[in-house]
Structures are given as structure tokens and as C-alpha cells.
């Protein structure tokens, strides 16, 4: 048998297995990975519909022009053309940020249950009766949550942004301006969405130690992984503070806490001032579209050592989680 055929024979059942495992993760977590973004889209539609109706009502009741038509005139002016796409990026970031926040909450609950639920309902005995390794299982769960779930959200973000643009077009049309010129020729829904995915993935890398810690708690706890996840770092912090106050020993816990704060603050809420979005200027004081300000700093951060230190810690915790899943036999 040639090596190519041998490779295909050994590869194809493996790929099929991974595909099956990923499908199962999405089926198990359809609530968080599929229904939740759909619900958020639904809420956005509802909000926009209400805004459209009440906006009309206000115009009618007061009998005067509440949405200044002058604004539309400014927006239509040639001098403003270069800013149009930036202005349209604002709503995108609001929409995408909302979805990202929902995904972050879903991921916290995913990881806290990732290696715990199967022990609680003893289904681990069924999973382990099939030829699927512990390493594969843990890594597929990790990858599904951090790489593929954002893809599912991406579809929703794209759809929601299109709806926002449609709503904007409606408003622009009501103001007797041209939606085609002001909205659709300036908006970049696809490129924004793809850039956002890249930022999300980079953010996942920063948050990897946090998620890996939740996973480790999930693999370790006999009950209530969330308590371990909160109480252990809490106890460590209290102990370190106590050491500092009583023995003047500084173990550098504040640096760790502030690093954690930066990670969570910077990447669960990726539009914090850290990214200078609000300033809209690059370091030379030139105007820069917000989407570029977002992606630039995120890419710059790849060269920061603290990112890779965090990844190394995460790798150790993932290794431990695999080890625990493999060696614990208290479910049988």
C-alpha cells in the first residue's frame, strides 16, 4: 500500500471522528452557541422596530422636525465622505460587542461544566466506552468553544449588522437622503465582521488562562466547580495580602491581579479605552478608522511576553485537566 493511501486511510476516520465530536458539542450547547445569538438578533430587531415606531410618533406628535434634516445634509456633503465608513463602524462595534459579551458569559458556563457535567450525570462512562481519547476530547471541547463558537456568533453579528444598516437606510430615506450613497457604499459589513473574528480569536488567546482555569476546576471539583473557581484565587489573594501586611513579604500578587483585570477588562469588553477607539487617532495624531485602531493594538500584543506566559500557564492547566479526566475513576 502506498503511503498516500495509508495516510488517507488513517486520516479519514480521524477527521470523521473530530467532526462527530464537534457536532455533538454544538448539539449539547445549542442553547449557548446557537439559540443565544439568535435571541440577541431578535432583541435587536425588536429594539429597532420600537425605535422606528416611536421615532415616527414623536415627529407626528410634535409636528416638527426632531431628527434634524441638516444632519443628513452634512452627511451628504463631499467633505464628510471619508468619515462615513467610520461613523458606520460605531454601530457595528456596539452590535459586535453585545454579542461578544453574551458569548463570554456562555463560555464561562461552558467551561465550568465542560468536564464536570459528564461526571455528574455519569455519561462519562458512555463516552469512555467509545474509542475517543481524553486528550482529543478535552482539546476538541476547548477548540469548539474558543475557535468555532465565535464563528457561529459571527454569522449572527453579520446578520444583525445588516439589519442595523437596513434600519439606518430607513432613517436616511426618511430624511430624504440617499441610503445607497450614505450607507451602502460606505459600510463594510463583511470586512468588519472578519476583522472582528480575528480580534475575538486574539482575545481568546489572552483569556486562555482564565478559561483553562475554569476547565481545570470543572475537571477537579466533586461538586460546584464555580466555588473552586472563585474561592481558590480569592484565598490566594487574601493570603498574599496577609503576608504583605504582617510580614511585609510581597509576593507580587497585585501584579497578577492587575494583569488578570487587564485581560478580563480588555478582552471580555474589547472596546475599552485601551484601544483608543474613543480617540480615533493613531499615535501620530492622524485620523484612523476605528476598526484599524482595534486590530492594530491587538496584533501588537502578540509580541508581549505576558501573553505567552499566560498561554504557558493555560497549557499546564489543560494538561492537568486531561490527566484528571483520564485518571479519575470516581464515576464508576
Amino acid at each position, binding site marked *: 500500500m502506498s503511503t498516500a493511501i495509508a495516510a488517507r486511510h488513517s486520516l479519514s476516520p480521524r477527521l470523521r471522528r473530530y467532526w462527530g465530536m464537534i457536532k455533538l458539542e454544538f448539539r449539547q450547547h445549542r442553547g449557548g452557541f446557537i439559540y443565544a445569538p439568535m435571541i440577541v438578533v431578535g432583541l435587536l430587531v425588536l429594539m429597532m422596530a420600537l425605535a422606528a415606531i416611536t421615532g415616527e410618533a414623536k415627529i407626528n406628535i410634535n409636528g416638527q422636525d426632531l431628527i434634524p434634516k441638516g444632519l443628513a445634509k452634512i452627511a451628504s456633503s463631499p467633505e464628510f465622505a471619508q468619515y462615513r465608513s467610520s461613523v458606520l463602524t460605531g454601530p457595528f462595534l456596539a452590535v459586535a460587542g453585545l454579542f461578544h459579551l453574551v458569548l463570554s458569559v456562555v463560555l464561562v458556563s461552558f467551561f465550568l461544566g465542560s468536564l464536570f457535567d459528564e461526571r455528574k450525570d455519569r455519561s462519562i462512562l*458512555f463516552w*469512555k466506552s467509545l474509542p475517543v481519547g481524553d486528550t482529543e476530547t478535552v482539546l476538541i471541547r476547548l477548540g469548539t468553544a474558543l475557535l468555532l463558537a465565535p464563528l457561529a456568533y459571527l454569522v449572527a453579528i453579520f446578520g444583525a449588522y445588516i439589519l442595523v444598516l437596513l434600519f439606518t437606510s430607513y432613517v436616511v430615506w426618511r430624511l430624504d437622503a440617499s441610503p445607497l450613497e450614505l450607507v451602502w457604499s460606505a459600510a463594510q459589513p463583511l470586512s468588519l465582521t472578519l476583522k472582528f473574528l480575528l480580534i475575538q480569536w486574539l482575545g481568546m488567546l489572552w483569556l486562555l488562562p482564565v478559561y483553562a482555569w475554569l476547565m481545570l476546576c470543572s475537571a477537579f471539583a466533586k461538586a460546584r466547580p464555580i466555588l473552586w473557581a472563585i474561592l481558590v484565587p480569592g484565598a490566594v489573594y487574601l493570603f498574599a495580602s496577609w503576608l504583605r501586611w504582617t510580614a511585609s513579604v510581597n509576593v507580587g500578587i497585585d501584579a497578577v491581579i492587575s494583569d488578570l483585570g487587564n485581560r478580563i477588562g480588555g478582552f471580555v469588553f474589547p472596546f475599552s479605552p485601551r484601544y483608543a477607539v474613543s480617540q480615533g487617532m493613531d499615535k501620530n495624531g492622524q485620523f484612523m478608522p476605528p476598526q484599524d485602531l482595534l486590530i492594530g493594538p491587538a496584533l501588537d500584543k502578540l509580541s508581549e511576553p505576558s501573553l505567552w506566559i499566560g498561554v504557558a500557564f493555560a497549557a499546564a492547566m489543560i494538561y492537568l485537566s486531561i490527566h484528571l479526566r483520564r485518571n479519575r475513576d470516581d464515576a464508576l
Partner: protein
Amino acid sequence: MTAVISARGLKRSYGKQQALAGIDLEIPRGRIVGLIGPNGAGKTTALKAILGLASFEGELKVLGLDPFRQRTELMQRVCFIADTAVLPRWARIRDLVDYTADVHPNFDPDRCWRYLKQTKIKPSSKVKELSKGMVVQAHLALILSISAELLVLDEPTLGLDILFRKRFYEQLISDYFDENRTILITTHQIEEVEALLTDLLFIKDGRLVLNASMDQVAERFCELEVAPAQLNEARALSPIAERKALNRHVLTFDGVAREKLAPLGQLRAISVADLFVATMGGLCAFSEVV
């Protein structure tokens, strides 16, 4: 052909408690082996070691593989059911059949659907909506559709009614079992599996106290119903157990010539259940006969 399971000095302790105290075992291909023992005797620990779910001391090979280190490889050729219904509660039956078909190269989904059609379970049923007996049925359908060389069943029919239990064991023999397959089964309902076993393993306090084929069992062991007059004479032949039924005594013998026993009363074959009681309970001093 090498043995399906072969163990030398298999040990496992939990803290100070020794769950397996050194087991030597050789199970060839094409057998149906009953592993029988009281609660806490080490049955589950032995099965966990065989299935690679727990580490162990000593030597153990299953289908020539180290079950703990090569578990994933082993699971392509071995399948098992743990004692109670353990299918994930959130899943639909369809999800589980799909998943098993994707990850298991030796799983036959058509066969599984055929088994499921014999039950009231629908493809869209969620595990949490099914009764416990139906979950067991679904689990059995999944596992019996995997063509494995070794099938390990730990209390497979717990929670099932007698009709389904009967049908399950019939199917196991007629559909599933052949000379290339080995089935290792533990159960407390000994009477129901007695007829299908080819080999018997009794385990007590982490040791094997009986390891024999059913033919050997029939040859070695017998029961003698003795009238009070001959009781002392019969007791002198060292029975391994004795019980009283009405006003007669029933003595169990191991390896005593039938010609010696026949004149003392009524000889008869012993059931596995009675042999189990004789070996485990009754006269503890005699339990380590093997």
C-alpha cells in the same frame, strides 16, 4: 490465538483498602464468562482495570494491549455497559447514534435502528424523557451494534422487565455471540445468565475463589440431600457448605467422588446460585478452596 484477557498478580488498592489482592486469570476467545461476587468483592475494580478506566498493579493484557495506556486503541475492539443507565440526559437518541457512527469504525447504525424499532424509543426522543428501562434499552441497542471482540456487561439488565431481559439474552446469543467474540458479564440475577455462561469466575475480597468452566463446575461440584441418620458420615467427607431444607440437610461437595456420596443420600447437580451461596456465605472457612 492469544488469550482475550490475561492477568498475573493483578492488584489495586484504594488507600489502605485492597480492592484486588492479586488475580491470575486467562480468558480465551469465544467464551461467555460470568464474573460473580458479592457487593464490594472487587468486581467493579477488576472491570475498570480490564477496560482501562483505572490504573492497576501487576500484569494485565486485554487483546494483547495494555488497557490503561492503550485505552483508545482498545476501545475500537472492546465495548462495555456500566451498571446503570448512563446516557447523557440532554441528548436525543438520534444525536447518540450519529455520534457513535462518526467515532466508532465498527458501529453499524442500521443495525442499531433495527434494534430501536423493536422498542418504543423514537429517534427524536430525549434521554431525559425516557424511563430508566428505556434508557437501558437504548444503551443496549447502541452497544450491541458495535462489532467488538470483547463485550463487557456490568449489570446490563438492571431496571428492565422480565420480557425484555429474556429477549436481550436471547438476542445476545443468537445475534451477537460467535466463536470470535468473548463476553464478560457481571450480574446479581445469576439464574438468568446461568444457561448461557461457558465459564464461571467467583470473586471474594479481591481474590478469585473459583475459576472454572461450566463443564468443570458440573464435574467437580454436587449437592447431596442427606437424611439425618447419614449426616455424620456425610459430614466426614468435608462438604464445603451445608444448609437445612425442612428436616433434611443439603451438603455441597467439591471434588468428592460420586460413588462415595451416592449411598448417603440423593445426589444432584448444583445451580450456580446455590454454588455461589455455598462458596461465599455459609461456611466461611471453606471458601478459599480453589
